């Protein structure tokens, strides 16, 4: 493992500064602009480890929690952009967080219905209406598909994977690859196949889902504009994933992928290496479009208990690291949401340029995380969701102080809940935020 790297990153400094300046946002007044700059500044200072922030930034990382807090069901939030937008606007103002939730992450139910989307169940569609969405893991990619994936991920993704994860797009698998279009005499088969009624229907469904989503984001966009105009940054500009998790979550599934580590390890590695530039591009593209350098990366199947350190070092970390470094090279800030425990893996996470990424922890020992990563990378999280959901105000205040004492140091910490928050209680969540702001003063 290499020593901590002091590499200046002008590109990242410029992107963070541009984001923190609020350039391009039509603020409601000067006060809102100042508040926005202050909040972004807290996060920027916490990330860069160059200057102690005024206080610890408080970013709870909520997804469906605001919906439940304002008395709505998951279904209402997923089927009505005005309901969702209003909830997120109210939540952001009432709870006064330093960076707020990203409404489009809730997604639009009607568009998913149009696609006959299989990768998740959602409220009113396989899950009770009051709840949030849940992942449906299956072997969407077969073992024999690796060569296709490796030779041409985009073709595989579009024609095969989409056809298996969206019922309405199943006919796409019957399309020939696009490459015959290079010359007039060979273009016929591709174009003619597009005319086949099932393929026409599939494209119509895709276009309809696109149109539905476009109308939805236009409605939602005005609320997001109001949130930012009121002085609140969003906690991420885009999201991407560790290549191992792309394969393990959405393509092969956990069990088949874990067996692939023995049966076809070279193919797993080749597929992940193909994913590296694609995952960098996904993260950078969204961040630039949203003028927010924070790229959210939820980490899933490299956690303690899933695999050995040797396997982590061989299969999980190299391509995750490459994605993170690629994001950094493009001026973005990888923000890894380290789900589960990483007590056996902290040393790996330290192997990054100083002050250029964020690790938000779930069940990792925070004192140890601080010890290993302190002065090297910004850390966050570690607050138990259990206390927010079932505890009382006193417990939350005490635990928040205890956590801050252990890990806030002289900067480099973001106070967050340890998991993506789908439910909460008003009194405990407000106590968490208030205590964080008061007790987190440097």
């Amino acid at each position, binding site marked *: 493992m290499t020593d901590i790297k002091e590499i200046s990153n002008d590109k990242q400094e410029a992107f963070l500064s541009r984001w923190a300046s609020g350039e391009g946002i039509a603020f409601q007044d000067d006060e809102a602009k100042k508040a926005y700059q202050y909040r972004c500044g807290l996060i920027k200072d916490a990330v860069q480890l160059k200057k102690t922030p005024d206080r610890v930034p408080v970013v709870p990382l909520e997804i469906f929690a605001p919906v439940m807090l304002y008395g709505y069901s998951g279904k209402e939030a997923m089927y009505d952009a005005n309901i969702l937008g209003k909830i997120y606007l109210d939540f952001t103002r009432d709870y006064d967080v330093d960076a707020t939730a990203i409404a489009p992450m809730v997604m639009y139910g009607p568009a998913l219905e149009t696609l006959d989307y299989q990768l998740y169940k959602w409220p009113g569609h396989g899950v009770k209406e009051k709840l949030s969405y849940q*992942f449906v893991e299956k072997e969407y990619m077969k073992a024999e598909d690796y060569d296709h994936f490796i030779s041409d991920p985009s073709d595989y993704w579009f024609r095969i994977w989409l056809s298996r994860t969206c019922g309405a797009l199943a006919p796409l698998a019957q399309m020939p690859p696009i490459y015959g279009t290079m010359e007039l005499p060979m273009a016929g088969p591709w174009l003619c196949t597009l005319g086949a009624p099932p393929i026409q229907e599939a494209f119509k469904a895709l276009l309809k889902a696109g149109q539905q989503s476009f109308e939805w984001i236009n409605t939602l966009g005005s609320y997001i504009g109001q949130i930012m105009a009121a002085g609140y940054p969003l906690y991420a500009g885009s999201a991407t994933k560790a290549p191992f998790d792309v394969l393990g979550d959405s393509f092969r599934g956990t069990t088949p992928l874990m*067996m692939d580590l*023995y049966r076809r390890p070279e193919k797993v590695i080749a597929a992940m290496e193909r994913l590296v530039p694609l995952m960098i591009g996904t993260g950078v593209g969204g961040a630039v479009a949203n003028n927010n350098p924070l790229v959210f990366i939820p980490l899933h199947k490299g956690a303690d208990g*899933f695999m*050995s350190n040797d396997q982590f070092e061989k299969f999980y970390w190299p391509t995750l690291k490459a994605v993170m470094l690629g994001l950094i090279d493009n001026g973005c800030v990888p923000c890894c949401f380290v789900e589960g425990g990483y007590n056996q893996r902290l040393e790996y996470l330290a192997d990054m340029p100083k002050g250029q990424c964020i690790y938000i922890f779930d069940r990792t020992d925070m004192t140890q995380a601080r010890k290993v990563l302190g002065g090297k990378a910004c850390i966050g999280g570690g607050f138990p969701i259990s206390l927010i*959901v079932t505890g009382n105000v006193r417990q939350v205040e005490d635990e928040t102080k205890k956590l801050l004492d252990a890990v806030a140091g002289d900067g480099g910490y973001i106070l967050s809940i340890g998991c993506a*928050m*789908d439910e909460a209680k008003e009194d405990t969540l407000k106590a968490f935020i208030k205590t964080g702001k008061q007790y987190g003063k440097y």
Partner: protein
Amino acid sequence: MKDTQLLTQAVVDMEEDKALALTRQLLESKTDPVAIFNAYQDAMAEVGKRFEKGIYFIPELVMSGDMMNSAMEIIKPYLNESDTRDTGKKTGRILIATVEGDIHDIGKNIVSTLMALNGFEVRDMGVDVPIDRIISEAKEFGAQIIGLSGLLTLAFDPMKNVVERLEQEGIRDTVKVIIGGGQMDDQICRYVGADAFVTDAVAGISLCKNWLNGSI
């Protein structure tokens, strides 16, 4: 080393092709199919032990399980039904379910596998299991332990409701309740009224074994 021991070793070492070839070879050379079956059982037990020691992880657990399943397809025609029935003395009855509202099963499946390897009679009810079904199944099965799984915070209340129903039915004292999942902690254990919580499979197995050793 005996051929069956070589087979056990091959499975433990994750040498899939070698294990299958040895299995075929042993069957062709008229080795007692029960001995071959037992070689796989021994291998699974060793894999389970290594998992509990933190030497092996999910890849080895699922790989060895799959090797065993493939082998059973070949061995089955040579076995009498009685040969594989109740191969070992069961140490205890555990009912496992992911609670209502939650459809996650990776963690639960690992626990089920390890419990079975440790000699438990496991009844795995799957995911999103309604409280009524858990209660009736627990009674019918005579469960000594109920293991409730849930990845999401939405699992807290259904878990609590299961314990409350056990109390209402007057059978709370006859079973131990253990909850497992990514967000379980002492706070949730008290909230639910469970006897214990765990966040990893190995801790769960060890707890359940201790309970049985103390005769629940």
